[in-house]
């Protein structure tokens, strides 16, 4: 009975995480298109939400990697998955509150790994899987996106350089609509699958799925797609500002090149089953398209702050996942610990959102 209760809490928490992932990563998908005025904010976010939903149905390879590639499934319990998710959500909310782009994906895997270490020690972590399927792709993907966007924009300027700016700008605005859509689709493909993998992992721990015949049930795919799409629709305006205008000031051709580069890198990674950070990739491509035009156009200080936040994500989320597991098991192995932590988490989230809304509301003007 308590196992069933924890499973329900885990699924609800995983879908809440998926929602925050969409909420947090809206910036990755729409920031460049909004900042170049290729599309207005509201339709951009609506399009991103819809295509995130569609993208979630495109592939299941990343879900399989998350579900069986990083930790020993025999060491997994529903409480471990719960603690990993709460650690990741806590890190996402902290970075959102301070306006720092981080990586929801690395937060999720970091939280999970931290909780597994707390529960079963380092031996339960698949170090080779982490290195091969997470760390190395995470290191090389942003430079690839940087390179692809940089080479693309250099060739684009060479091809269209002698034409009147008016028709070229109009053409790339249309192109950016398509590249935004492709980026949203690729985001749904890679990011929604991480939640699917975690829920499937919880189902393995609960005994509903055999670890030897791992698969993702259809209802998990539909639920994860819906949660990420809703999160994307609600949006994360604070981080949009950081990614869209503070790294570089872009023209539409740069925006198009950055989004096309980001989308192709994410789709290629999804095809290989790598759970990439879409934030890392699109930030790399934005910097590439800016640096190719003029190195000084990139505000490297802001880029450095973002890289610092990335570096911190995996260990910080792992620490939080481990601490949450320790707290949850203080109350025994039943559902009491996860229930109490869920209530505390909900209360904290409500307080953070209310405080943020109060800060965002302008003070009344007095005559």
């Amino acid at each position, binding site marked *: 009975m308590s196992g069933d209760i924890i499973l329900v809490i885990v699924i609800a928490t995983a879908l809440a995480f998926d929602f925050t992932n969409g909420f947090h990563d809206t910036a990755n998908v729409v920031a460049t298109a909004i900042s170049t005025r290729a599309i207005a904010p509201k339709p951009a976010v609506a399009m991103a939400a819809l295509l995130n939903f569609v993208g979630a149905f495109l592939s299941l390879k990343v879900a399989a990697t998350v579900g069986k590639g990083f930790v020993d499934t025999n060491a997994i319990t529903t409480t471990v998955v719960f603690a990993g998710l709460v650690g990741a959500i806590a890190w996402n909310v902290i970075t959102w509150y301070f306006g720092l782009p981080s990586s929801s994906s690395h937060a999720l895997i970091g939280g999970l790994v931290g909780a597994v270490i707390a529960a079963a020690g380092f031996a339960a972590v698949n170090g080779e899987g982490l290195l091969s399927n997470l760390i190395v792709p995470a290191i090389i993907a942003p430079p690839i996106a940087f390179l692809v966007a940089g080479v693309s924009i250099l060739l684009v300027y060479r091809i269209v350089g002698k034409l*009147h700016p008016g028709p070229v700008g109009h053409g790339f605005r249309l192109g950016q609509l398509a590249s935004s859509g492709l980026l949203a689709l690729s985001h749904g493909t890679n990011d929604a699958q991480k939640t699917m993998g975690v829920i499937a992992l919880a189902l393995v721990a609960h005994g509903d799925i055999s670890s030897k015949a791992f698969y993702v049930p259809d209802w998990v795919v539909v639920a994860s797609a819906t949660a990420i799409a809703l999160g994307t629709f609600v949006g994360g305006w604070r981080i949009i500002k950081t990614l869209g205008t503070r790294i570089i000031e872009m023209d539409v051709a740069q925006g198009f090149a950055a989004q096309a580069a980001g989308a192709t*890198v994410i789709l290629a990674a999804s*095809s290989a089953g790598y759970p990439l950070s879409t934030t890392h990739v699109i930030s790399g491509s934005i910097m590439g398209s800016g640096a190719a035009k003029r190195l000084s156009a990139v505000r490297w200080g802001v880029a450095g702050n973002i890289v610092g936040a990335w570096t911190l994500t995996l260990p910080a989320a792992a620490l939080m996942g481990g601490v949450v597991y320790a707290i949850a098991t203080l109350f025994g192995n039943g559902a009491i610990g996860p229930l109490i932590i869920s209530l505390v988490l909900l209360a904290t989230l409500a307080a953070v959102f209310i405080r943020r809304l109060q800060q965002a509301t302008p003070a009344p003007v007095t005559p």
Partner: protein
Amino acid sequence: MIVAAINTHALIKMVYSSVLAGVGVAVVFSVAIVGAARSSDLRREHRTAAAAAYTALAAGGLLLAVGMVIYGLILVAHKS
């Protein structure tokens, strides 16, 4: 040992797929824009034959770009 743990084949494939597809789509779409812009200029100058050739270039570039994206999406969906 660390290198042995890494699936270099999959990584290299990801790298060249990204480079080819990303740069390819950007170049082909730019060619389509050149075609559309030049076609519009030439039509204003009443050079219909040249305008038609650039319109064909624009249409071809656009179709190729769309085709590359659809082919890429089919590959991602098919492999999963």
